[in-house]
């Protein structure tokens, strides 16, 4: 420690003098100015880089770039389309006689892990190792491993033998402490592996599911199922000064992690072992820039001839800097030191005018990228409640419909989201199969007169509860005690007051809210959902009775309708097509009438980019598109220089004034003492 400390202190003192001599706000070394480096900020350090556990956007910023997934999303096409990644093709389900389903996966030839110290454990030892089907099986076992504690393990219980493996492993570890200390691959082997995962050869793997689950393919496009080398987990164990595996990913992706000082900077550089770099001649999907996209892509510059068909990646380095506060990060973007940014609320009106880039920013050659996110925010009713829920029968239904008609989500997004969002008419956002831009939910068009009529039908004329003669009292249970949160919820409460209803905001902490949810002691709540994958199932399951909140699932409305459940199960296991679309239409009609949710909006992300950034089309799904991105360092260097000339005259003025102020006193004092 002391050497490091002394070094740091001495270096700091010396460097300080140099800095005062060379006044600059440039946070980067001069030598990097001409390089193809992509700079951006992150607001919070990643928690883990373990692909079995990482689930947040900031984790994926690294894990998505250092791992390539078995499948991936087409960079430009919408609706989302899966294309092969490490696999040779997108696998199709094969039904088995016992109701099980089988997927056969075949890895591409010649895949390698990034060079890493951990491969000294391999047989034979080496600087790197080829990727094998067993590495996929190993990662699936990690998802099951209770010690890894993967947040998505419940999804994979559909794999035959998944739970059995987890239980055997846990039992063996508890019974024998020495076993728990053995090398991880030996532990997994001794526990017998997952019965439904068969390694058929070096590149071939079979996964058997106990029930149809077409959504499995989307999970193959996430890092949760990327191949992981057992050597990496065994070697990077956090012992004897080595990093833990959660900080030292060894991946198969286009980049590798070069610096991981996550409390200040994270640096990625191209992975020389990536198959796109090793074998450009194979022109595998996802290793060359695509030639086709959406209709508007050519005009938007995403299909520039300079890029189409060229091998990826284009960047020579990626620099992420920690900037916890939005405002300084945004200021650095305006200085040209970050290439892209979100928009801070304080500056929104300066940046964006009527949904487009303001003339001031357009003059600086910036671009605004807008994308509706695959997510939905909604107000929900607790369907187990006696007043607003299913037990209230037709009367409660009319009440829910009336309350829905009172809410204007356009007003909400205008006030609280700077207009960033489109009104939601159903749970499905744009870009998801089944979304219908022409559909208008009749209960989601604000209409106070109709709402009042429905209330009358429900027996709450003028919002009065006939039992008490006073306005019907409901609670709006929220988990945000901040002043801002209260302001947001007040908008809804005011809207309902116009119907004569007396809705009280019960703001509690998240835990107290969870407790209320467990006890079923809530009536109205607000919630949001961000998709894991672009399938309608990932939204419509939020109202499936088996996902009920009272059972620990995400169906916080506790909506339980056998008609809906039957439609859902049929829709879930069906490929996209007219039949599926028809089922989704039926489900939508049912939700429209039952009204367990008041759909609010699908948020829209606004990103600002400098003119020197290319190919930054937003994807929305958690899949890294860094390999497609490019920057023009020459243009950037010129702009940075023009924008950041230091203003030095105030320093001289201040120094002069100080001297002038001091001089008479010195003269006077000396005279007096003489």
């Amino acid at each position, binding site marked *: *420690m002391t050497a*490091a*400390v002394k*070094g*740091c*202190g001495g*270096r*700091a*003192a010396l*460097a*300080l*003098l140099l*800095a005062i001599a060379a*006044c*600059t*706000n*440039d*946070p*980067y*070394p*001069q*030598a990097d100015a001409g390089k193809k480096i992509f700079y951006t900020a992150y607001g919070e*350090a990643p*928690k*883990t880089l373990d692909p079995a556990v990482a*689930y947040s956007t900031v984790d994926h910023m690294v894990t998505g770039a250092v791992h390539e997934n078995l499948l991936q999303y087409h960079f430009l096409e919408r609706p989302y389309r899966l294309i092969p990644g490490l696999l040779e093709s997108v696998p199709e389900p094969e039904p088995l006689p016992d109701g099980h389903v089988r997927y056969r996966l075949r890895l591409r030839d010649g895949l390698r892990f990034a060079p890493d110290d951990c491969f000294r454990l391999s047989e034979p030892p080496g600087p790197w190792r080829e990727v094998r089907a067993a590495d996929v099986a190993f990662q699936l076992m990690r998802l099951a491993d*209770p010690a890894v*504690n993967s*947040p998505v*393990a*419940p999804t994979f219980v559909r794999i035959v033998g998944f739970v059995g493996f987890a239980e055997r492993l846990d039992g063996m570890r508890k019974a024998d402490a020495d076993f728990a200390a053995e090398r991880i691959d030996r532990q997994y082997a001794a526990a017998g592996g997952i019965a439904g995962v068969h390694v058929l050869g070096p590149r071939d793997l079979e996964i058997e599911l106990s029930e149809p689950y077409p959504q499995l393919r989307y999970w193959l496009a996430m890092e949760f199922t990327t191949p992981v080398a057992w050597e990496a987990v065994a070697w990077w164990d*956090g012992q004897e000064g080595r990093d*833990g595996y*959660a*900080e030292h990913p060894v991946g198969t992706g286009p980049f590798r992690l070069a610096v991981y000082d996550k*409390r*200040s*900077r994270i640096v990625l550089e191209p992975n020389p072992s990536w198959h796109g770099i090793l074998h450009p001649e194979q022109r595998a999907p996802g290793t060359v820039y695509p030639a086709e996209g959406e209709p508007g892509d050519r005009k938007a510059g995403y299909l520039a001839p300079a890029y189409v068909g060229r091998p990826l990646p284009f960047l020579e380095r990626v620099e992420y800097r*920690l*900037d916890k*506060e939005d405002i*300084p990060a945004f*200021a*650095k973007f305006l*200085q040209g030191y970050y290439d892209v940014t979100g928009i801070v609320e304080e500056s929104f009106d300066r940046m964006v005018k009527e949904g487009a880039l303001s003339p001031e920013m357009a003059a600086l050659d910036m671009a605004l990228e807008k994308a509706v996110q695959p997510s939905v925010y909604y107000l929900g009713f607790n369907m187990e409640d006696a007043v607003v829920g299913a037990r209230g029968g037709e009367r409660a239904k009319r009440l829910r419909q009336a309350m829905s008609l009172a809410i204007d989500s356009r007003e909400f997004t205008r006030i609280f989201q700077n207009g960033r969002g489109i009104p939601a008419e159903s749970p499905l956002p744009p870009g998801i199969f089944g979304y219908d831009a022409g559909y208008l939910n009749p209960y989601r068009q604000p209409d106070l007169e109709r709402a009042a009529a429905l209330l009358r039908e429900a027996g709450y004329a003028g919002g009065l509860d006939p039992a008490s003669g006073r306005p019907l009292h409901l609670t709006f249970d929220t988990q945000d005690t901040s002043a801002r949160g209260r302001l947001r919820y007040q908008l809804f409460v005011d809207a309902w007051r116009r119907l004569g209803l007396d809705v009280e905001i019960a703001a509690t902490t*998240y*835990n107290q809210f*969870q407790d209320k949810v467990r006890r079923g002691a809530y009536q109205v709540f607000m919630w949001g959902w961000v998709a894991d994958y672009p399938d309608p199932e990932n939204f419509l399951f939020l109202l499936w009775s088996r996902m009920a909140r009272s059972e*620990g699932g995400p169906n916080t409305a506790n909506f339980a309708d056998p008609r809906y459940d039957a439609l859902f199960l049929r829709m879930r296991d069906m490929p996209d097509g007219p039949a599926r679309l028809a089922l989704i239409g039926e489900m939508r009609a049912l939700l429209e009438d039952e009204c367990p949710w008041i759909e609010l909006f699908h948020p829209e992300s606004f990103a600002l980019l400098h003119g020197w950034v290319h190919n930054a089309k937003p994807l929305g799904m958690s899949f890294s598109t860094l390999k497609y991105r490019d920057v023009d360092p020459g243009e950037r260097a010129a702009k940075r220089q023009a924008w*950041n000339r*230091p*203003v*030095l005259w*105030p320093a001289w003025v201040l120094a002069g004034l100080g001297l002038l*102020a*001091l001089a008479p*006193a*010195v003269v006077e*004092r*000396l005279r007096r003492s003489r």
Partner: protein
Amino acid sequence: MILAYLLRRVAYGFATVLGVLLFLFVLFFLVTEPQDIARKALGEKAPPEAIAQWLANHGYDRPRFWNPDDPADSMLVDHYRRMLTFDFGRSDADDVPIARRLREGVGPSLALTVPLFLIEVPLAVGLALVVAFLRETYVDRLGVVLCVLAMSVSLLLYIIGGQYVLGKLLRWFPISGFDPRPAVIARFLALPLAVGLLAGLGESIRYYRTLFVEETGRDHVRTARAKGASEGRVMVRHVLRNALIPILTQVVLMIPFLFTGSLLLESFFGIPGLGSMTVEAIHGNDFATLRTMVYIGALAFVAGQVLTDVSYVLVDPRVRLE
């Protein structure tokens, strides 16, 4: 004699540290449930199974204060056992060993606090000497007013103002950030140093000035002047030297805290030191890290007190510790 005194002092200090640890434990779990910690660590989408598993993996599934089945197995007992044996364990936020975090964080903290300390003390002493020298002129009066003004402004305002004026408007320094590479580290330290100096100088100058002015009225100073010593010699040889005792003891008290870093400066300037680590631990419900930092802070406080006592004895032969 002095040894007995010091031992007693250390024993009091130890009791203080034990009390701080208990206070922290009770306060933390008064406002936070272990489930909160788990959910912060695992994210909003984590299913209940994963939360339960996390609690078990991190020892938060045990009784909080008292385990009737096994009195040695409660969260509180474990809390004391770990702290007193310096086995800090792993962060609740990301499972990184806290001892390693401390090693990584102390460098950036010292890179800021040591230059700040080395510049601030001589600068404040020097400026206070000038002000004391110019006592009863407009500079002295104005100086005192400015010092009081400077002391009254919150550090936050200095930080935000410094970032806005020096970073954004005048473009002298990067607004915030940190990079330990020699080519750029100074750029990142310059602004927090300037801000730290501005914020700290007012109080120091005013304090030192009082010491010096008090000293200038003493008999030995008058004698020196009567003997015809020059004004400069009087200020340095007779005033400064004698005022050094209270200065030294105050400065010694600051030394242990150089290691714990500055909470606000580090957080707002993005310096990955121990100060910002503490702030992150508070925001992230990271009890394991927070208690370590509080423990170290308490130890630093006790160490500062003992060191001050010792330095009194060393520099002033009139002081006896009994």
